[in-house]
Every structure is written in structure tokens, then in C-alpha cells.
């Protein structure tokens, strides 16, 4: 169980990215974090594993306050939190297997990781995870040889290799096409259910969030403005979260822009021939 108490973050520039966020996430719950860009979604999940240092407040994972740990102890606690990134953040020049095994880094001494001599149990588990995400036969390929969806699967396998008690997921589908996005979201919810794993998922795609999340938290200017079931996410709630601007129009604008970009790409391709 994860508990945030009065979590705040003010950047050096004086921007208050998070102010006084208090949340409780029970075991096995998948929470979607929505909000306009700059609302502090990314800061919030990075404050939990302290890739960003919170300025005030508590982060309680079980009964340990992560916000108050020294360097060594923080590293040990980070093993309990798996993280999945927007642009996959795989080490591109390493093989798929090395990327999955890198989830074990917090558990093995340096010489083992340096010589790639991981314990048999770790290797076995890595293969099991690769099989689970459907990439059993890609183990020896380099990460940069995979497609976007495949890379995100490796990212999921890496996070699960940590045997985490919590998953932090930062815009998992932002660089994927709609169909692959749904596959990845389905995989995520399935693996969380299999392990009874709580997860916080940053997501900008509201329909996708409504389809897959059990609970939605709306963030605006660093504060929680909505916390409830996906079905409670009405038009007026969305207006509170995304501001006075018509969020439908915003999304339509996005589509238009991507259409225009695709069109431009096609024309460029035609010119190049």
C-alpha cells in the first residue's frame, strides 16, 4: 500500500509543481493520473521514487517513509518500485535480455552485473517475463532493433524483474499508435492483476484512462481536483481538470495536427521518389 501525505515540490525556479498532495493507493489498484501538461503528473510519480526530490511531505510505501532515506537505503527501497517510461528509456545499445536483467541491478553485486553473470534464478525469471510479454525469441536482439510496442514490452518486463510492490508508469502509450497503445494497456492491467500490484499510470488520453483504469485522479496546477471512479468523469469534471477551454476541441485539434503531419510526411515521401 502506498500513502502520500502532504507531498509538495517547489522547483528552484520557484514553480510550485506539487502542493500538498495526499493519496492512498491500496494493493492491486490501478490508478490513472490525468491532467493538462504542466499539472505535475510527471513530478508526482518521480517524487515517489525520488528521481525528483520532494520539498515536503511523506511517501509511505508499507511503513517506510521514502522521503527521508539516505542514499544507500534509498537504492534498496527503489528496488520495490518498478518504473515504466514514456519513450521506453531502454538502454538502446544493450540486448533485450540485458535490459530485462538490468531490473535486477539493485539485487546483485557490481561484479555480477559487470560480467553479466546473473544468478540462475534471475535469468530464469527474466526468460519467464520475456515469455509473458511475448518476446521470448527476441532475447538476443539489440533493443534498438525492436519496434515501439516491443520496446515498451521490454520496459514492462524490466520493471517486473525488480519484483516490485508498486509500479510507476509515465505516459506508457505517448509514442505508440492507438492499436498498440490498447495492447500495452491491456498487458499492463493483466500483469498488475496477476501480481495484485498497485500502479500509478500517468496518462493524457482520457478515453484510454476511462477504459482501463479502476480509479482516476485529476491533477491541476499541482493539486488533486478529482478523485473517483472512471464513470464519474463527467464533462464538467473534465472542465475542472483541463480548465475553461473546451477539452473536446483541444483533442480535436490534436487529431487535426497529427493528420496534417501525416499528410506532410506523405507528400515529402512522394517528393523524394
Amino acid at each position: 500500500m502506498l500513502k502520500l501525505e502532504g507531498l509538495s515540490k517547489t522547483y528552484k525556479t520557484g514553480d510550485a509543481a506539487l502542493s500538498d498532495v495526499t493519496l492512498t493507493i491500496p494493493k492491486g489498484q490501478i490508478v490513472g493520473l490525468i491532467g493538462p501538461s504542466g499539472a505535475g503528473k510527471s513530478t508526482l510519480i518521480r517524487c515517489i521514487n525520488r528521481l525528483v526530490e520532494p520539498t515536503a511531505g511523506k511517501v509511505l510505501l508499507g511503513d517506510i517513509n521514502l522521503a527521508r532515506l539516505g542514499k544507500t537505503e534509498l537504492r534498496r527501497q527503489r528496488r520495490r518500485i518498478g518504473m515504466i517510461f514514456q519513450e521506453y528509456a531502454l538502454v538502446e545499445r544493450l540486448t533485450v535480455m540485458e535490459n530485462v536483467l538490468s531490473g535486477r541491478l539493485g539485487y546483485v553485486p557490481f561484479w555480477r552485473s559487470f560480467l553479466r553473470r546473473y544468478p540462475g534464478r534471475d535469468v530464469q525469471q527474466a526468460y519467464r517475463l520475456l515469455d509473458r510479454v511475448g518476446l521470448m525469441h527476441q532475447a538476443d536482439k539489440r533493443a534498438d532493433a525492436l519496434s515501439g510496442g516491443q520496446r515498451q514490452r521490454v520496459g514492462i518486463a524490466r520493471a517486473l524483474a525488480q519484483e516490485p510492490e508498486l509500479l510507476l508508469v509515465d505516459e506508457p502509450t505517448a509514442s505508440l499508435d492507438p492499436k498498440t497503445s490498447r495492447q500495452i494497456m491491456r498487458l499492463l492491467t493483466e500483469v498488475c492483476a496477476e501480481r495484485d500490484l498497485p500502479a500509478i499510470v500517468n496518462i493524457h488520453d482520457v478515453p484510454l484512462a476511462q477504459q482501463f483504469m479502476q480509479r482516476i485522479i485529476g491533477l491541476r496546477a499541482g493539486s488533486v481536483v478529482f478523485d473517483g471512479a472512471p464513470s464519474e468523469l463527467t464533462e464538467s469534471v473534465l472542465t475542472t481538470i483541463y480548465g475553461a477551454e473546451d477539452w473536446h476541441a483541444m483533442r480535436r485539434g490534436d487529431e487535426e495536427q497529427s493528420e496534417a503531419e501525416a499528410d506532410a510526411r506523405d507528400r515529402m515521401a512522394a517528393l523524394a521518389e
Partner: protein
Amino acid sequence: MSDKTYPTTWRRPPQIVADRRWRIALQLGILAYLVLAMGSVEVDWQRVSVGLERGQRFIMGFLQPDFTSRWNDISRGLVESLTMTLTSTVVGVLVSVPIGIGAARNLAPAWIYYICRSIIAVSRALQEVIIAIFLVAMFGFGPFAGFLTLSFATIGFLAKLLADDIEEIDEAQAEAIRATGASWWQLVNYAVQPQVMPRLIGLSLYRLDINFRESAVIGIVGAGGIGATLNTAIDRYEYDSAGAILLIIIGIVMIAEYGSSYLRKFLQ
């Protein structure tokens, strides 16, 4: 989850040489070379241990440099080096521009292209020091030979990069200018010059820096400049003066580096 059993070991597949035999052969070859090469180095340890004391004196000289007692020689060498650097860079750039244009396949006819490319190749293949030896033999000792050496070396460096740049210019822009019925000169002026000018200025400043560093070297073979002063100081075992000269060189290079990055920002 299935009850399948998974392997418990994994080896990173070799990334470059896939064949195991080749890999071993390659490793043995490298090992054999290293043994042979190290074996060819004859070290007179007695001489080295004597030298360590001198090395210590040199380091002390570096830490407590003596700028004053040889200041006349140092300042003369410095003035020669600096003037040589500037004049050779200016002349070198002026000559490199036509040669660079001539060595660009998309602008020059074939015979000019080959002439210009061979000038570049000769200039690049020969060390500055070797060119300096010949030019000193022809023009006598002093900074004039050094000036010629550095100008010639600048041509090889700048003209090549300029030519490669011109060959990579955006053809669409050149096409557009050509379509207006422009002459060859107008084409160079409107389509090529704007595209390569910022880089040409940047490269010239960079070359100014290189030329100063090289001017310290060619003095050793008699082409004037701070190198001659340095050579004398080391020959006389005056390590504190030598240390001073080296510190001056390092200082000027640092100033040149900061100055040129500032100037480049200003010009853009």
C-alpha cells in the same frame, strides 16, 4: 502461468565478430602484437632514473615559472608567433575559398576539380614540420618560412572542409536560384555563400587556434616563433623559462578557445 522450464544461464551474444575461431585468432593476434611491440621498446632504466630528477626540476619549473630572465627572447618569439598566426590564417583562408569551390564537384568542371583536390591531398598528407623543413631550406630561417608553412597547411584543412560542405548544400535552394536564370557567379553568391558562410567563419577561427599551436612547433626546425625560444630554453636546461613559455601557450590557447566561441555566438 505455464509450468515451462526456462534456461538458467544466458551469455551475451558477441556483437562484432560472430565466429568463435576468428575471435580467438583476433585476440591472440592483438596479444602477440602487444608483446612484440613492448619488446621493441628498449628502456635504459639508469638513464630514466637520472632523468627523473630532471623531470622533477621541470615540474618545479612549471609550478614556479620564470617569466623575467628570458623575457626578451620570449616576447620576441611570442610576437613572431602571433603575427605569423594571423597573417597565415588570413592568407590561408583567402586562398582556400577559390580552391574549396574548385574542389566541390557540384560547382567545378572535372579538370579543375582534380587539380584542386590534389593540392588539398598534398597539403593534408604532409606534416607541417616536414613542410617547414623544406620551406626553411628554400626561404631561409625566420618567420616568413613559418608563415608560408602555416598558410599551406591552412589550405589543406579549410579547402577540404569547405569543399565537402559545398557538396552537401541543399540542392533545392541551388535549383531555385538556377531556375531564375542566374549566372555561375550569382549562383555561388546567392545559393552557396549563405549556406556555408557561418561554418566558414567558425572553421577559420578554429584554424586560427590550430595555427597558433603549430607555430610553437615549427620553430623547432627554424621557422621562427615561440617554438625556437622554447627549443633554446630546453637545450639550455632552463626548465623554469620553458615552463613559463608552455604556460603562456596554454593560456593563449584557452583565451583563443573562449574568444572564438564568444565571437561565433556574436556573429550568428
